[in-house]
């Protein structure tokens, strides 16, 4: 599979109260590639993701998705991405299965859901309301989406938080498989990775000492 360009970021800058948050970012991401966004606490990784998913507007610079500017391909872009952030969007009062079904593509089969639950080790918890889960199990519900999703560009903000070793290994496996099948991803993590080979990009905080 020839690597095609999926994401291109040109001189992206973000200002809050007239101060740049990080040094302008320029990046390229091809299919089959993973990009590890590094940076200290508060460097702006989460903010960067929110710009990428169009929840915040950049102050300067531009983003191209498969060669098109964002505004031209909004629909295609948004239907082809998956984002899992610090808050994972899991509804506390719904059961594990209901949550996963709700967060998965429309035509996901029941087997796929069951498979996803099994992969993240929650097969016995399918009917438990999520507020009763442990921190790591809660996170696993959100991450089970990695099995059911059909998106080709993944944005994962700290996917390994709260997971135990075996959970981290499983998620890394998922990510690797996604890359192998031609997907692409941008993720942030403070932990070192074991399995995946990823290009890393360090967000340089712009903060002058006040």
């Amino acid at each position: 599979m020839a690597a095609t360009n999926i994401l291109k970021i040109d001189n992206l800058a973000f200002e809050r109260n007239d101060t740049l948050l990080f040094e302008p970012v320029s990046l390229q991401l091809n299919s089959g590639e993973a990009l590890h966004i590094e940076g200290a606490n508060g460097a702006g990784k989460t903010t960067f993701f929110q710009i990428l998913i169009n929840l915040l507007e950049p102050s300067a610079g531009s983003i191209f998705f498969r060669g098109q500017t964002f505004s031209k391909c909004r629909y295609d872009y948004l239907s082809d991405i998956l984002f899992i952030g610090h808050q994972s969007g899991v509804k506390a009062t719904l059961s594990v299965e209901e949550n996963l079904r709700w967060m998965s593509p429309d035509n996901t089969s029941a087997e796929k859901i069951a498979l996803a639950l099994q992969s993240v080790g929650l097969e016995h918890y399918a009917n438990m309301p999520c507020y009763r889960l442990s921190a790591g199990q809660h996170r696993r519900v959100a991450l089970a989406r990695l099995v059911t999703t059909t998106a080709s560009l993944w944005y994962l903000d700290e996917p390994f938080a709260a997971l135990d070793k075996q959970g981290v290994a499983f998620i890394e496996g998922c990510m690797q498989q996604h890359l192998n099948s031609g997907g692409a991803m941008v993720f942030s993590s403070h932990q070192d990775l074991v399995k995946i080979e990823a290009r890393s990009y360090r967000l340089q905080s712009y903060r002058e000492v006040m």
Partner: protein
Amino acid sequence: MYNYLSGGFSAYLYRDLLLGIRNKTDLVKPLIFFLLISALVPLAIAPEAERLAQLAPGIIWILAVLATLLSVERLFSDDLQDGSLEQMLLSPNMLILPILGKIAAHWLMIGLPLTLLSPLIGIWFSLPVVAVIPMILSLALGTAVLSLIGAVGAALTLPRQGGVLLALLVMPLYMPVLIFGSATIQSAVDGLDWTAPLAILAAFLAIAIALCPLAINAGLRLAKNG
């Protein structure tokens, strides 16, 4: 790659109903809630039948406004906190449909029970029987308008967004609904034509369905800049 998350109206309608109705008692709760509030009124005011009957149209409508105000606040704030608002905003489709879905669920859980219960409250307050049908109709339409307007307020006052002032502007919009709603019932009690105020309520509903989702959409997109 159509996604359930972006599935629009019915997906959000179903989810919010599910969230509201986890067990059977959840269904009964709004009913009891209305019964309780309406039981407060005769206790605090006068319990004589004629006096209550005069007040009934107004009181029922004030109840509707209160119940909406009380409940609409959490329409989006729970979603903001657990991150599912973010996921909703990521939907490639127009947000209008999910928003309407959520509002419809809210109405089904607040406006509809109140509407169905209103004959009972009417009996409590010795409302004349002729006024029952107009009351039901006006409540059905009017509470939907209230949910829609309330959702605009809720979107604008999402935690720390500083939309308090805007919300202040939205709240007075309840007044016309209240006036025409109680006017419908009052006209029926007085033997006048009650279809005119009802028609106005219907017009309000049409306008609200067209405009409110746009305002809500804009409000929600601001929430992330808090």
